């Protein structure tokens, strides 16, 4: 009984209850969590330091632990370089042909330009059920909520929380993140979805594809025209499996995301993009406007 009546314990417990209640209220009200943003900003230099440390350790660890793998990878890369040189020659011919065909069809690049901010990935959400990333850029760099985050390979996710010098990104692997997409080859439209088990394996799926869609393994899936968060045409991933959904008479495709979420270091936040429409030219800055 003396332990329960301990004044220090009672004061600490009350304090902890107050902190938990007051700080959680921001979340349940759906407004920006100011205390969390302040803590995140304060922790930024330390996270930065540990990120650098892990990067510098990476090189040494890989060197010592994966010597055999590195040798094999080197051989494979040499073969690949040879193949790519051959392909490059073919590609140069194809580029000329492609340009001619595009002029012929009247198709132009849809987006004139992206304005992007480069950001470094400082940490993730401690490996539990959340698929968040923390970036080292915030409102001071022009980042706002709902801006798309990409890499040179494809879409990563979108900014869900911003503080002055950092922001949090909800990745496509988070179970409640969905993006309107279409299959680039066939033009079939669907929507990405990420069940929890698939997200843990680093996979996505596309649902609501038409029953008669002509899908092939390896088809590229890109962001669609609907919505103003993501510019259309950004690579989301490639189809690795197609299954019929007997209940909804639609097709469901499993995607290998274009981005390797386990190995993200540098990303780009799209702060604005100019979209060329047939009649008018529209400027979109994230989803703020």
């Amino acid at each position: 009984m003396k332990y329960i009546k301990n004044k220090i314990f009672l004061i600490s417990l009350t304090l902890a209850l107050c902190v938990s209640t007051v700080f959680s209220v921001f979340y349940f009200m759906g407004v920006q969590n100011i205390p969390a943003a302040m803590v995140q900003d304060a922790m930024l230099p330390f996270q930065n330091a540990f990120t650098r440390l892990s990067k510098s350790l990476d090189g040494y660890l890989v060197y010592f632990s994966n010597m055999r793998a590195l040798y094999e990878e080197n051989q494979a890369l040499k073969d690949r370089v040879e193949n790519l040189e051959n392909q490059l020659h073919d590609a140069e011919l194809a580029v000329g042909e492609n340009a001619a065909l595009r002029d012929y069809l009247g198709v132009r690049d849809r987006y004139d330009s992206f304005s992007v901010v480069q950001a470094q990935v400082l940490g993730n959400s401690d490996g539990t059920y959340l698929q968040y990333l923390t970036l080292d850029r915030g409102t001071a760099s022009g980042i706002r909520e709902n801006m798309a985050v990409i890499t040179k390979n494809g879409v990563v996710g979108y900014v869900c929380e911003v503080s002055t010098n950092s922001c949090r990104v909800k990745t496509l692997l988070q179970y409640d993140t969905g993006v309107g997409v279409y299959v680039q080859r066939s033009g079939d439209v669907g929507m990405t979805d990420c069940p929890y088990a698939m997200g843990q394996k680093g996979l996505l799926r596309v649902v609501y594809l038409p029953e008669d869609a002509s899908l092939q393994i390896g088809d590229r899936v890109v962001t669609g025209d609907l919505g103003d968060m993501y510019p259309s045409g950004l690579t989301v991933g490639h189809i690795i499996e197609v299954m019929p959904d007997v209940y909804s008479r639609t097709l469901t495709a499993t995607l290998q995301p274009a981005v390797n979420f386990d190995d993200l270091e540098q990303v780009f936040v799209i702060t604005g993009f100019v979209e060329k429409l047939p009649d008018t030219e529209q400027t979109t800055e994230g989803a703020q406007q």
Partner: protein
Amino acid sequence: MRKHYVLHAMTAVGCVACAILLCAAQTSFFPHYLNDAILVPDLLLCMCVGIGVFAGRYAHIYGTLFGIFAGILADGTAGCGIFLLPLLYVLCAYGAYVCADLFPKRKFTVYLSFGAVASVLRVIVAILYVLLSGGSVPIPDVVRYVCIPLFFGTSIALLPLFPASWILTLPVRKIKHQNIDKFT
């Protein structure tokens, strides 16, 4: 008397620095390496238990204050916006202190066994996070990807963090020894 203040200050500064470093390591360093091993240790929880067990007669003060601070850091840095960890850490730190007080000669055993209990409580809080954040995550997935890695990661992390918590609480334990000498 002045020496006591210095020893308290050393412990307090050590606790703050330790919380910040462990929080940064937990969110930026270990996920990079331990995700492959399917372990998600809660280092701050281990430290709360360690301080609660090893800080002697000041354990309840340092443990609970460390718990609040560490909880705010952990939830603020890598949480979803709901702050439950300050409460959990305070309860675990004080529980560890009570157990250590009841079994003063078996502190290491108390540290490990109560640490395992605290890991179970941490798993329950993780499930609460999933439920409160409105996620429609299937229970088997939660057990496989959250509960098991969190429980085993935290339980295993208790061993390597034992020296850290022991050294961190060394200054306050010294105060206790001096006072006992004075009275005897």
